[in-house]
C-alpha cells in the first residue's frame, strides 16, 4: 500500500535516481566489495595458494618477526605474514571478513529488531507497558555486558559455535540503547498531528507504528544502524582484547587487531592492514547510511529532483503527456 502512488507515471524514474547518489554508490560499493571478499575468500586466497591456518615459519626471523619489507609482503603474501606463526595476513583478513561482517550484521540485526520493537512499544503505549519495558532496559543497561560475555564463554559448552554466541551476546545486549533512543523519539512523534490523525482514522497501533512513526524514526535509526555495525565489529575486537572473543584458529579482524596492537612498533603492517579493512567497512556503511537517510528524506528528494529536472528536462517533456492524460482538474477558476 505504501508504494501505491509510487507507480504514478511521474514517479517512474524516482527510485533509480533517488538511490543513485554518490554516497550510496560509493558506500554500497565498499560494502559490496567486502561482502564479495567474504564470499570468495576461498578462491581468492587460493590464487596464491594460501589459507588462514598454515604457518610459514621460514618467513620469520629468529625473533619470530616476519622478514622482509612491510611484514613480509611478497607476490605470494600480498599483505605479508603474521609474526610468531607466519600465517598469511591476506587470508586472515579475507576469511576474517566472514566472521566480522557476519557478527556485525547479524548482531546489529538482532539488536535493531528487538530495540526498535521494544522502543516503539514502550514509547507508544504509555503507562504499565512503558514502565515494564523501560525497567527491562534498565536491567540490561545495568548488567555489565562484559561480565556476561566472560561468564557465558565459560558456561556455554565449547561445542556451541563461538561466532553465533558472540552474535547472540552482542545482539541481546545491544538492543537497549537502540530501544531507548527509539522510545524517546517515539514519545515525541506520538504527539505529532499526523499521528493523532491516524488514530482518529481508526488505524491500528501496528499501522500507526509502521506508517506514521517509523518513517520519522528512520533517519535516526539508519545513522544508529550504520554506527552500530562497525561498533559491533569493534566490540568483537574488544572482547578479543579481553580474551573472550572468537576462538582460534577462526580468523577474525577483531582478534587480529587486538593481537596486532602490541606489535604496532615492531610490525606495523600487521596492524595497518586489518585496521584499514575495519576502517573501510565502517566508512562504507556510514556512507551508505548517510546516502540512505538522504534518499528516504523527502526534502532531500525534492532537492535531488531539482538538479535532476534540469538534467532530464527532455524526458520530462515526453512524460508530461502522460501526466496530462489524467483528467484535468476541474474548476481551476472557470476561465482559463
Amino acid at each position, binding site marked *: *500500500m505504501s508504494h501505491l502512488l509510487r507507480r504514478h507515471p511521474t514517479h517512474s524514474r524516482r527510485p533509480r535516481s533517488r538511490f543513485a547518489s554518490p554516497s550510496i554508490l560509493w558506500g554500497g560499493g565498499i560494502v559490496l566489495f567486502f561482502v564479495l571478499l567474504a564470499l570468495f575468500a576461498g578462491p581468492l586466497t587460493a590464487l596464491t595458494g594460501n589459507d588462514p591456518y598454515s604457518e610459514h615459519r621460514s618467513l620469520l626471523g629468529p625473533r619470530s618477526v616476519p622478514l622482509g619489507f612491510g611484514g613480509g609482503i611478497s607476490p605470494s603474501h600480498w599483505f605479508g605474514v603474521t609474526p610468531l606463526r607466519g600465517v598469511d595476513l591476506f587470508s586472515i583478513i579475507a576469511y576474517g571478513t566472514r566472521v566480522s561482517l557476519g557478527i556485525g550484521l547479524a548482531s546489529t540485526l538482532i539488536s535493531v529488531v528487538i530495540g526498535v520493537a521494544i522502543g516503539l512499544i514502550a514509547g507508544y503505549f504509555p503507562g504499565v507497558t512503558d514502565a515494564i519495558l523501560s525497567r527491562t532496559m534498565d536491567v540490561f543497561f545495568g548488567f555489565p555486558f562484559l561480565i556476561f560475555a566472560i561468564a557465558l564463554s565459560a558456561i556455554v559448552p565449547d561445542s556451541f559455535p563461538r561466532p553465533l554466541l558472540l552474535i547472540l551476546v552482542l545482539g541481546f545486549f545491544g538492543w537497549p540503547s537502540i530501544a531507548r533512543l527509539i522510545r524517546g523519539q517515539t514519545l515525541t512523534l506520538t504527539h505529532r498531528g499526523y499521528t*493523532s490523525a491516524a488514530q482518529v482514522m*481508526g488505524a*491500528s497501533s501496528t*499501522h500507526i507504528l509502521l506508517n506514521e512513526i517509523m518513517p520519522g524514526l528512520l533517519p535516526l535509526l539508519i545513522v544508529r544502524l550504520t554506527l552500530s555495525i562497525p561498533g559491533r565489529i569493534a566490540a568483537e575486537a574488544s572482547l578479543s582484547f579481553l580474551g573472550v572473543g572468537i576462538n582460534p584458529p577462526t580468523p577474525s579482524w577483531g582478534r587480529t587487531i587486538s593481537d596486532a596492537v602490541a606489535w604496532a612498533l615492531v610490525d606495523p603492517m600487521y596492524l595497518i592492514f586489518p585496521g584499514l579493512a575495519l576502517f573501510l567497512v565502517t566508512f562504507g556503511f556510514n556512507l551508505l547510511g548517510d546516502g540512505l537517510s538522504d534518499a528516504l528524506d523527502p*526534502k532531500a528528494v525534492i532537492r535531488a529532483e531539482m538538479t535532476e529536472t534540469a538534467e532530464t528536462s527532455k524526458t520530462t517533456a515526453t512524460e508530461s503527456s502522460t501526466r496530462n492524460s*489524467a*483528467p484535468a482538474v476541474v474548476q481551476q477558476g472557470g476561465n482559463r
Partner: protein
Amino acid sequence: MPSQTQALMKASTEDETWKGEHPIIRVDNLSVSFHSSPVTHNISLRLFPGRLTALVGESGSGKSVTSMALPRLDPPTARVSGSAVYQSAISHEHATAQTTKTDQQPHISSDSSKSSGSNTTHSSDQSSDSIDLLSPNAPVRTIRGGLIGTVFQEPMAVFDPLPTIGHQIEEALEFHTPGRSLSRAEKKQKVLDQLREVGLPDPQRIWASRPHELSGGQLQRAMIAMAIINRPRVLIADEPTTALDVTTQKGILALLTRLAHRRQLAILLITHDMGVVWESADYVYVMQHGRIVEQGPTRQLFEHPQQAYTRELLAAVPRLTIPATTPVTTSATIPVTASTEHASAHAHVSRETMAEKTESEKTSALVEVSHVSFTYPCHGLFHRSSRGSGPALTDISFRIDAGKTLALVGESGAGKTTLAQILSAQLHPQSGSVLINGQNIEHLKGSALRQARSHIGYVFQNSASALVPTRTVGWSIAEPLTIHTNLNSSAIRDRVTALMKDVGLNPALASRYPSQLSGGQQQRVGIARALALHPRLLIADEPTSSLDVTAQKRVLDLFHRLQNEYSYACLFITHDLGIVQEIADDVAVILHGTIMEQGPVDSVLAHPHADYTRTLLDASPHIGVLPQPPHTSHSSHASADDERE
C-alpha cells in the same frame, strides 16, 4: 530608469486616495519557480505606507510564495527572479510631486519593462534609503522582523515547540533592540502589552504557555504579535485571521488598519475572504494561475470587476443572509450575483430538516453528547503554564442526527477543537458521556474503537501537521482506505483521484509531499482524506479556513452532495456565519467552554438570545449594499485613523 519611474507612477497614481504617496515596496516582474517549473509569472506589486494592500486569489495561485520572497523566506528550492525594492518613506516628497495623472488601466505585470528591476537601487534621489530585497547583499536580518514583519499562513507549526511563547516573542524583540537596552521586566511587559493588543484575553497565561497548549486562533494572534512587536515598516500577513472567529477577526483587522494608519505601516494582506478585503483593504490585487489578473482600489474593483475570475470570486462568497426579523440592519443585503437562489433553496432545505427533526426526536441520535466537561491536565513535571486555566469545556450537551449538520461557532480558544477531539475519543472528558451511534466511545477499546472510528471522518484544523511529512499526499488520502478496506491498489488509486477531483485538487499533486503544497491545497488533502471512507460522522474543524471562495464553495457543495448521498452527521466548526447558514441545520454557539445557545440555524441567527451570538452577528463581515462609500464602511475606524503617530 525612465520606464521604471513610469511604472512606478502608474502604480502609485491609480487612485486619488493614495494622495500621491510613494510606495515603500516595489515589486517588479517577480517570478518564482520550483525545479525549473514556474509557479508565478512576472508579478508586480506596490505597497504603500499606511495602506493595506490585499492579495486575493485562488488557492495555490502563488500568493504565499510571492509574498515570502520579499523577506526571502521562500523554501530553499524556490528560484526567484525579478526585483523587489524597499524604499524608506522619508524621501517620498519627490515622488509625490511627480504624481500627476491617474491611469485607470489595470497594471498587469507583463506590461512592465524587463529591465526595471536592476535599476531601482540606483534611483538618484533615494539611493541611500533603498534596499534591493532580492540582492544577495541585502541585510536580511534587518529586513526580516525589523523592516518586514511576517505572519505565516499555518499558525500551528510556526512556533518552536520547546520554548514558551513569551520567550519566543521576547527574542524577536531582542534581535532588533541594540545592545541590552531592555531589562527583562521591560521586555516581558512589552510582550504582554503586545499580546493584549492582538486581543489575547489572558496574556500572562499565553506568555507562559508552550505552543502545543494553545488553540489555533491563540497561536495565530501570538504570531501576529510577534510580527509587529518590532514595529516593522511593512507587514506581510498571510491569511492572518483564518483561525479566528469573527469577533476576534474583526478586532485583528481593526488593529491592522489602525497600525497601518498610526505607524504608517504598509500591509500586504493575503486572504481569500472578500468580506475582509472589502472591510479593510485599500487596494486589491487578484491572482490566478500565478499571475496578477486584475488590480485596483478596493471599491473600484468591487464595483467594476473586469475579469471573470474576480467576478466569480465576489459571487462565490457565502453571504450571511439574515431573516428580516433580525435586529441587524444590514441583513437585507442580498448578494449581487446568482447565489440568492441557492441560498434560499438551502434555507428551504434547512426548514425541511427541522421538520424532520421533530418527528425523529425519539429515534436515537447519531451523536449524543451529554454533560461533558473537560479540563486539560497540568502537563509535565515542571511545566505549570496551564495553571490558572480553568476548564476547557463545561457541561456540554447536544445531539446530531444522521444527515444533519451541527455548526459549532465560537470565539477562538472557546474549546471547539477540544470538543471535536472528545467526540473522536482523542481526549476523554472528566465527566459526562459521548454516545456515537449509541456506543459510549469513551469506553471503547482496541478493535471496537478502531471500528467506531472508521465511521468518523475528521478534518484537522492544522492541516499541515496532520499530514505525514515523509509520505506523498496521495498516500495520505489513501491511508483510511488501506486501513479499512481491502481494495487493490488500482482501485485505491482511482478512489484517490476521484477524491482529489472532488475537492478541487489536481490529481497530479498526489505524488507531492505536503511541504510542496500551498496551504489551501493541504487543507483539501485533509478533507479528501476525511471523506475517503464515507463516514457516518464527519467532524470538520475549520475545514475551509484556508480556501479561496471558489474552492470553498466547491468543498461546501461536496459536503452537501455527500450528506445527501450518505446522510452522515456532521460537526462543522467554523467562525464564518455565512458558511454556517449555508451548510448547517443547527448551530451551537460556544464561549469559554460553555454552549451559550443552540438551535436551528435560522432561528438562532434570526433571534439570537445570547449576547455573544449577537456580537458574532454584528462582527460578521457583510458585503454591504454595493457600492458603498468606503468612508462610511470604515467609520468605526475613523477615529483611530486620526490618531497618527
